[in-house]
C-alpha cells in the first residue's frame, strides 16, 4: 500500500540548506524537497529578528522558498521521511499516505537542534517551564503564548542572546544567564548591551546543578567553580546552544558520522561515504548561521549536478580530524585531486578560549600547514583555517590532523 516513484534529486529538509540546494538544481531534472513541518524554512521560521542578510528569519524564508520554486523544485510540506528502503530510496508518511521514493541523488539537509536538559544530565525534578531556544521561539513567535514570568538562560553563545531577546520581548524578566565557560561567546556588542543596558547578569564558570519545583519550575541550583551553590528563583529555564545535528536519518541509513560534529562525515563536495548521498547545512555542524547553511546548499547543488553528469564517487578519501582542545573540523574527508573545501577553508571549533593560537596541520608527522590565528578562538563559534595545502596531502598517507598550540586561558 506504498506508492512508489522515482525522481532525480530528493532533498530532505526545507531549511536554508535544503532550499538553497534546490534553488541551484534547475538543470537537474525532477527535484523534490520534502519537509516534515507544515511550512518550509527550518529554524528561521521562528527567528523573528534580523540578522539574515537584511532580513528577519521569516522574510529570509520567503526569499529562499521563492528561489527554490522558481528553479522548478517541487516543495512538499507536512511530508516526513521516516526511513530508508534502499541505498537511494526513502519512505515517507503524509496525509496523502505512504510513499517510497527513489532518487539518483539524495541530499540530507535535516539541520541541527539544541540538546535538551535531559541529554545534559541536569538532575532534579521534571517540572513544566523547561525550554530550549527552539521551543521558546516557537511558543512566543508562532503561537503567541507566554513562556513564563522570570527566566534563567543557560548558555552565552549567539543563540542564547536570541533567547534573551525573545524572553524580554515577551515581557519575561531574566534573572541571569549562566555559562560554564569563563566568558560569553557572542558578539561583544550583544553581550555588552545585554549586561549593561538590559541589566541581565552573566554568571561565568557556573553550571546548573539541579532543577527545583513540582508542577512548575520554582528555581534552579547554580554551582560555581569554587563549589558554592546558590538557588535562583525562576519559573522558566531555557537551555540554549549545545547543538547536535539531527542525524537520525543519516545514521539509520548507515551513513558514516564524524565523532566530532556527530553529523555525516563529508568531503569538500558534500559527499558522504554512501554513493549518491550528500549532506549540507547544519546537519554537518551545529550550528552555523543560516546564510552559511544556505551557501553550503548552493555548493552542494553544484556537486550534485556533477554527480548526475556521471562524476565518479570517490573510493579513497583521507580522513581529517582534530586533537584536543579543538572540538571538530569540517569537512572531514579530503578526496585526492578533489575540489578545495568550501571557500578554500576548513571550519573548526575549539572547546576552550585560545588567544591567537598557532594551528598546525600534519599527516604522518609531516607538517602540511602552519598558521597563526589573528584573533581569539572562542568556543561555540567556528573559525576558519586556510585549505590551500590540500594538494600536498599524501593520497596514500594516514589521517590529517589539526592541532592548536597555545596556553589556554
Amino acid at each position, binding site marked *: 500500500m*506504498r506508492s512508489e516513484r522515482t525522481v532525480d534529486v530528493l532533498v530532505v529538509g526545507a531549511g536554508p540548506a535544503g532550499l538553497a540546494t534546490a534553488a541551484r538544481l534547475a538543470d537537474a531534472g525532477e527535484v523534490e524537497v520534502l519537509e516534515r513541518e507544515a511550512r518550509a524554512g527550518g529554524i528561521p521560521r521562528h527567528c523573528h529578528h534580523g540578522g539574515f542578510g537584511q532580513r528577519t528569519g521569516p522574510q529570509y524564508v520567503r526569499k529562499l522558498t521563492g528561489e527554490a520554486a522558481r528553479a522548478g523544485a517541487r516543495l512538499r510540506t507536512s511530508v516526513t521521511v521516516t526511513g530508508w528502503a534502499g541505498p537511494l530510496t526513502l519512505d515517507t508518511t503524509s496525509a496523502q499516505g*505512504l510513499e517510497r521514493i527513489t532518487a539518483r541523488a539524495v541530499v540530507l539537509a535535516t539541520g541541527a537542534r539544541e540538546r535538551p536538559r535531559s541529554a545534559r544530565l541536569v*538532575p532534579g525534578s521534571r517540572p513544566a517551564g523547561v525550554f530550549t531556544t527552539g*521551543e521558546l521561539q516557537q511558543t512566543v513567535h508562532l503561537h503567541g503564548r507566554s513562556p513564563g514570568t522570570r527566566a534563567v538562560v543557560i548558555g552565552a553563545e549567539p543563540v542564547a542572546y536570541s533567547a534573551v531577546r525573545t524572553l524580554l520581548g515577551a515581557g519575561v524578566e531574566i534573572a541571569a544567564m549562566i555559562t560554564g565557560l569563563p566568558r560569553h561567546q557572542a558578539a561583544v556588542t550583544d553581550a555588552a548591551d545585554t549586561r549593561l543596558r538590559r541589566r541581565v547578569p552573566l554568571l561565568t564558570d557556573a553550571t546548573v546543578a539541579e532543577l527545583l519545583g513540582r508542577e512548575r519550575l520554582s528555581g534552579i541550583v547554580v554551582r560555581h567553580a569554587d563549589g558554592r551553590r546558590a538557588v535562583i528563583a525562576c519559573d522558566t529555564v531555557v537551555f540554549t546552544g549545545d547543538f547536535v545535528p539531527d542525524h537520525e536519518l543519516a545514521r539509520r541509513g548507515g551513513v558514516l558520522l564524524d565523532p566530532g560534529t556527530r553529523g555525516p562525515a563529508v568531503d569538500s563536495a558534500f559527499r558522504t561515504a554512501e554513493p549518491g548521498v550528500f549532506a549540507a547545512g547544519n546537519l554537518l555542524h551545529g550550528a552555523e548561521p543560516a546564510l552559511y547553511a544556505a551557501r553550503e546548499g548552493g555548493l552542494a547543488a553544484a556537486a550534485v549536478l556533477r554527480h548526475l553528469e556521471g562524476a565518479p564517487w570517490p573510493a579513497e578519501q583521507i580522513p581529517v580530524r582534530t586533537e584536543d582542545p579543538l572540538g571538530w573540523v569540517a569537512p572531514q574527508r579530503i578526496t585526492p585531486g578533489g575540489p578545495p573545501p568550501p571557500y578554500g577553508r576548513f571550519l573548526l571549533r575549539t572547546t576552550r578560549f585560545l588567544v591567537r593560537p598557532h594551528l598546525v596541520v600534519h599527516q604522518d608527522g609531516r607538517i602540511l600547514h602552519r598558521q597563526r590565528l589573528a584573533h581569539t578562538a572562542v568556543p561555540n563559534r567556528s573559525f576558519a583555517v586556510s585549505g590551500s595545502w590540500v594538494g600536498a596531502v599524501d593520497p596514500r598517507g594516514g589521517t590529517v590532523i589539526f592541532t592548536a598550540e597555545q596556553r589556554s586561558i
Partner: protein
Amino acid sequence: MTVTTAGELPDGTYDVVVVGAGVVGTAIARELARHPLRTAVVEAANDVGDATSKANTAILHTGFDAVPGSLESRLVREGQRRLAAYATESGIPVEPVGALLVAWDEEQRAALPALAEKAGRNGCPDARIIGADEVYRREPHLGPGALAALDVPGESIICPWTTTLSYATQAVRAGVDLHLNCRLHDVSRTPDGEGDGHSLRTSRGTVRTRYLVNAAGLHSDTVDRALGHDDFTVTPRRGQLIVFDKFARDLVRHILLPVPTALGKGVLVAPTVYGNVLLGPTAEDLDDKAATGSTAGGIAVLREKGRRIVPGLIDEEVTAVYAGLRAATEHDDFQIRAHPGQRYITVGGIRSTGLTASMAIAAYVTELLAGAGLGLGEPRDLEPVRMPNLGEAFPRPYQRAELIAADPEYGVLVCHCERVTRGEIRDALAGPVPPGSLDGLRRRTRARGGRCQGFYCGAEVRELFDERAEVQRG
C-alpha cells in the same frame, strides 16, 4: 461515563469507593465494574497513574525470584498470566524478550543454581543456566567478564501507562465514577440511620460509601491509620532510571538482570516497548514521599554500572531521567488485609511488582470484599477495549496506509522524534479518560517524549492541549 475533575461529589452512597487511581486502584475498579455495583475511584492527582505507576521499570515479571509461598509470589504469577492475556486482547504493548540474569564473578555464578531451583518452585520450569559462550552469542554487546547467566524466557517488557489507562477506560465505560483532583483527607463512620459505612471527607467535599478500598500507594499507611490501624509504615524507596536514545535499542536484546543481593534486585538494563533502553533503578530509602527528583549521585552510579553491563550504552544520548518511589514497608510481602467489621480493605505496600500483579490483586480484593459481606451480584463480561498502540513492535498509525486513507490526520506527524500524529493527539485529548497535563498527554501518545524533548514539537503540542482545554472551559 463519568470522569469529574472539579466541583462537588455526587450525593447518595456508593457501594465501593477505591482510594487511589494507580495501576492497582484502577485494576480494582475495572474488576468491580464487572459487577452490578455503584463504584467510584477518588484520586488526588489530575490524572490516573500519576504516581509510582508511571515511573517504574515496566517489566512484566514472571515472579521467578519471589519468596515462594508469599502472597506477592502468588499474585505476581497469577497477575503475570492475566495481564499478558489482557494486554494482547486490549492492545497494550508487550514484548516477551526474556531475561538473562548475568553472573559477573564466581560468587554470583555459584548463586545461579539456587536461583534456578527457586524459579522452578515459582512456576518457571523453563529457566536454565547458560554458559558464557551462549550469553555472548545472544547478547553480543554485553561488557566483558560475564561468566554465565540464568535464562528466564518468560520475562517481558510492557507499557505501564497504557495498562493503567486501559483499566481506567474500561472501568469508566462500564459505569465507574472517576473523581480526579480529589484527595481523601479523613474517614468517619456514617452516623446511624444513614446506613453502615464510611463518610469520606475529600478536597472536593464529602462522599459516602458502604465499602472502602485503600489503594493509596505511598500513602496507604496514612489512610490505614485514619481507619485506626497501625500495621505497617511505608518508607519510600527511590529508584532513579535513565532512558537512553532509540539508537541504543540495537545494543540490548534481553532484560539484563544482575544477581540479586541482600540490598535488593540491583541495576538492570532493559529495552522498552517504545524502542529505548532503560538503565536502573537505584534503591534509596528516603523519608519524603514526594522526592521523585533525580540526583547527580544517582545518575553517576547508574552510568558507572551501565558502562560495565553494556559499554556501548554510555556513548548514546540520554533521552530522559526519572525516578519512582516504591512503597516499601517493614514487611517482606504485600500488605493486603480485609477488615470485615469495618467494611474496609487495605491494599498497601505494593512495592516493586504491583504492575505485574495488578489484575490478580484486583481479583483477590474483590473476593475479600465479598468475604466482608458485599453482595457482588452476577458478574458480566466487560466490553473489550482496544487501546492506541504506543509500542514499536506493532504498527504505529504513521505506518498504516489503510488508517491514513480513512483519516488523513494519522498521516500528519507532530512529534517527529516519537512519530506521533495529529490524529493520535486528537484522540487522546477526546478520550474517555482525558489527560490532565502535557505529561498525561505524553503518557497517552509519547508526544514530546523523545530525544529533542520538545525542541521541534513542544510548542505545537502545548497549543493542541491548551486549545482543547479552552474549548472544554467554554
